[in-house]
């Protein structure tokens, strides 16, 4: 067995040496991988640059306001209406953002991070900030988004199966094409072991290449150092995915066809799993769960907001106080400015409740749609794999939902702080102003995906093994019947 293994390794090395196309495919794959990592890093650098700009924006505003406190003035000389000791302007000048920071792995799996916004302003008086996150796709080049990312996740999910195809399509089928399979079988102690080893060697080569890319990616992005556990899961998932495709191709080879037919079947599998099934699932699910014109949200942002802002404050006051037992209506009638600010905060609180409600509904709708997509996960391995990598890298929709929750939580904290300050009915002092900075929320969102993708991938692998056994049996029966190998 060991001798057979070494003989086969020597044979495969010779075959590779004599096949420039295979060697070229491996080199091109590695180059694509390196380019993908560098391209992903470029994207993450841009992302971090944006965060730096946000940080500078925050610093600049805060410093300006702190300067007014230090100079014991309420605002700039040329804009006398600005009074940073009131909640409205304190909210504006205690500038803070809820930010989705990139995981190091985000450079390897960009996911939706170039489509969705990764930051939002934390403010309790400037409208529905969780939904004010601008749409980078609309401000950018949508044709670029249409073309898709060239990140390592793409290379692994889509190009790796093709490399495996190039290396595997004529394993044993070449011998069949050349008419020497019978000779090979008679000269080999165990034809089964010969077949298994020949099928395993290309898989091993691809595992080594993928492993190289993962290690290089891990070092280059810093993931190996900063988030080893996530990188480990990322790597294991990638290696598992290689094995899955190896099993699928082995099933094709076990049917015992010629190399052209085997290649056709393999390409057919690739197209089905990497192009047709994902596109069809998207079409079917979007037809069943259409994403229309967000009327619910637009109604809250405009009609309901105005209804609350222009309505009678008494309508919202009971609910406001009931939800905040620590404060109570002022015993004495406050002055006009304070009364106006208190009314404003009662209204903003009522509006925030509406925003939280619609946000929850939107998140639920998204989750239901993803649940529908997940039902097809058993036959959608490329998407399931890509999705898992993006979840680990913190760039998938589930991570963005967590980010939106963070924004909501940050805005709510800001709202409650401002309410507490307002109900003291005193001008805001510098220390109180500085406490508002704490509402910024900068966080990474990478996490280990649920078990479902693993189960779905493993199930497909089991099906592939079963098919391999079944097709091998059929092949042997056919060979016995016809005598043709």
């Amino acid at each position, binding site marked *: 067995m060991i001798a057979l293994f070494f003989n086969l390794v020597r044979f495969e090395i010779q075959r590779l040496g004599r096949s420039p196309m295979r060697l070229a495919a491996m080199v091109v794959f590695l180059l694509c991988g390196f380019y993908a990592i560098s391209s992903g890093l470029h994207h993450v650098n841009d992302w971090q640059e944006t965060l730096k700009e946000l940080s500078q924006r925050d610093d600049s505003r805060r410093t300006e306001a702190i300067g007014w406190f230090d100079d014991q003035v309420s605002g700039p000389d040329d804009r006398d209406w600005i009074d940073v000791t009131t909640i409205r302007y304190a909210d504006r000048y205690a500038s803070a953002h809820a930010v989705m920071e990139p995981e190091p792995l985000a450079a390897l799996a960009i996911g939706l991070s170039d489509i969705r916004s990764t930051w939002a302003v934390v403010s309790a008086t400037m409208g529905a900030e969780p939904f004010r996150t601008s*749409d980078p796709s609309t401000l950018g080049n949508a*044709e670029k988004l249409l*073309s898709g990312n060239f990140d390592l996740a793409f290379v692994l999910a889509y190009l790796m199966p093709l490399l495996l195809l190039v290396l595997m399509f004529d394993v044993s089928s070449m011998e069949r094409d050349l008419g020497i399979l019978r000779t090979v079988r008679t000269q080999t102690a165990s034809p089964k072991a010969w077949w298994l080893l020949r099928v395993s060697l290309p898989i091993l080569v691809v595992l080594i290449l993928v492993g190289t890319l993962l290690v290089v990616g891990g070092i280059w992005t810093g993931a190996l150092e900063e988030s080893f556990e996530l990188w480990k899961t990322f790597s294991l998932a990638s290696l598992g995915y290689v094995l899955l495709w190896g099993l699928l191709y082995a099933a094709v080879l076990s049917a015992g066809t010629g190399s052209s037919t085997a290649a056709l079947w393999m390409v057919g599998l690739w197209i089905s799993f990497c192009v047709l099934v994902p596109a069809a699932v998207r079409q079917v699910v*979007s037809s069943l769960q259409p994403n229309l014109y967000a009327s619910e949200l637009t109604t809250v942002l405009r009609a309901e907001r105005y209804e609350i802002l222009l309505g009678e404050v008494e309508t919202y006051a009971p609910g406001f106080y009931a939800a905040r037992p620590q404060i109570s209506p002022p015993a004495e009638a406050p002055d006009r400015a304070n009364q106006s600010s208190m009314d404003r905060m009662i209204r903003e609180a009522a509006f925030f409740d509406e925003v939280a409600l619609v946000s929850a509904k939107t998140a639920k709708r998204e989750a239901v749609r993803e649940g529908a997509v997940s039902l097809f996960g058993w036959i959608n391995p490329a998407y399931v794999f890509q999705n898992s990598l993006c979840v680990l890298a913190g760039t998938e929709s589930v991570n963005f939902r967590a980010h939106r929750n963070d924004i909501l939580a940050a805005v709510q904290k800001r709202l409650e702080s401002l309410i507490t300050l307002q109900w003291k009915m005193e001008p805001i002092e510098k220390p109180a102003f500085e406490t508002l900075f704490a509402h910024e929320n900068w966080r990474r969102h990478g996490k280990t995906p649920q078990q479902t993708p693993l189960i779905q991938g493993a199930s497909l692998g089991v099906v592939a093994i079963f098919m391999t056994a079944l097709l091998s049996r059929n092949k042997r029966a056919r060979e016995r019947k016809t005598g043709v190998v």
Partner: protein
Amino acid sequence: MIIKLLLMELRSIRSDGRLLALVALALATLILSTWIGAESQSRAKTGRAAAMELSRQQWEAIDGLSAHGVGHYGSYVYKPSSPLSTLDSGVMPFTGKVVRVEAHVQNPPSHSDAGSWSSLIRLGAFDAGTILSLLVPLLLAFSAFSSVSRDRETGLLRVLVAQGVSLRSILWGKSLAYWFLSLLLVGALMVSHVVIDQLSGEPLTTDMKTRLLLFGSSHSLYLLIVVLLSVWISARVADSRSALMILTIGWLVTSVVLPRITAEFSSQLFPLKSQVTFEDEMADDRSKGLDGHNPRDERRNVVRQEVLEEYGVEKVSDLPVNLGGILMQKDEEYGNQVWDVHFGRRHETVRKQIGVVQAVSFLDPFLAARGLSMAFAGTDQFHDAQFQRQAENYRRDLIRVLNDLDAKAGTRQENGRWNREKIDYATLSDFEFKPQSVDFALEHRWPEAVSLLIWLIFSAGLLQIGTGRIPIVGGSR
């Protein structure tokens, strides 16, 4: 002779059950995608109508707001989908569908499909454009990879040449046979689309029919290029297996890898400013002035002085108009200039990025076919930019009318206070999108059209003059 060879190849194709099954599958997929697309579009249309109706009701229910307050309340503009977007959704899933139109602020479209989907949205669409430009070429390559090499391996090619049939005629006959298959697919798709439109009670306009025709023609042209190259490679390469590998790798590079790399490269060559910088610069220009020396307060004082002089009064309280409305409109006009400068730059950068892709389409006909497909379906970046432009124009008109009402709809009381009239805002009309004609698509996508023609000449030239080194006899495997 070419016709005879074409018929012979078609007979051979007819006898290949595997190939017929693939063609039937492609046909079914195309028709299914058109049908599902039409269903989705019908739902989207109903959804848009409902959203517009709701928005209108909310608009008409406005009570107690000044004209400028109504400007802040704003309106919503909903992007309609092109009737041919069922054939190619293009960039539409990635761009916003709703624009909040309000005073002082130029909001970009929001609520894109991509904004509420998982990364599945990146894995391609199941529409006719994708199927025709991505899958059918692969199907044709799979069908044609052994068209000549198989004949060479079986010795048929030698027999045909020995009988005096020119190699050129053989290659043309085979190519036209495979192209005929693809024409069947494209033709069936177009007929099914027209039928579905007729059944839905909304027949296509002349412009849409022209677009549909050009959509089908551009795809047919691309498929002809694919067929010619596939047949030539099958003839030029020693054996079927190598031909299959070359065609598969060629497809992968041109249809999957190069488009992504080109998109990345174009954005690195002509980078867009980050959103934060973009917003901050716009805000700066709006408050400090485009030249940095004409701040908002100074601009307001100049306008104030001009209005006072125009009406020959010394105090604002003596003006027969509401100065606030005039100031708001002047500020709005200044904001429009700022928007034009900044968005103009941004659109110019995007245009340059697309220009890079158009240049690369001379190396990769897939990019040319995809660009034309989106353009004729009315779903490319240029068409989308028109929606943004029209929405912005509507915003400017609406806010100007509201500011005019704010300035003039009222009377000055004796105590100098401005007394506003009650205004019926229901008389203000909703946004109406004016679709672009097919000329617009051709005007912006001529590089892709030229690229396809050059590719056609090149691939036809290969068959016409590149047959010299094609082996007639080859080793059988």
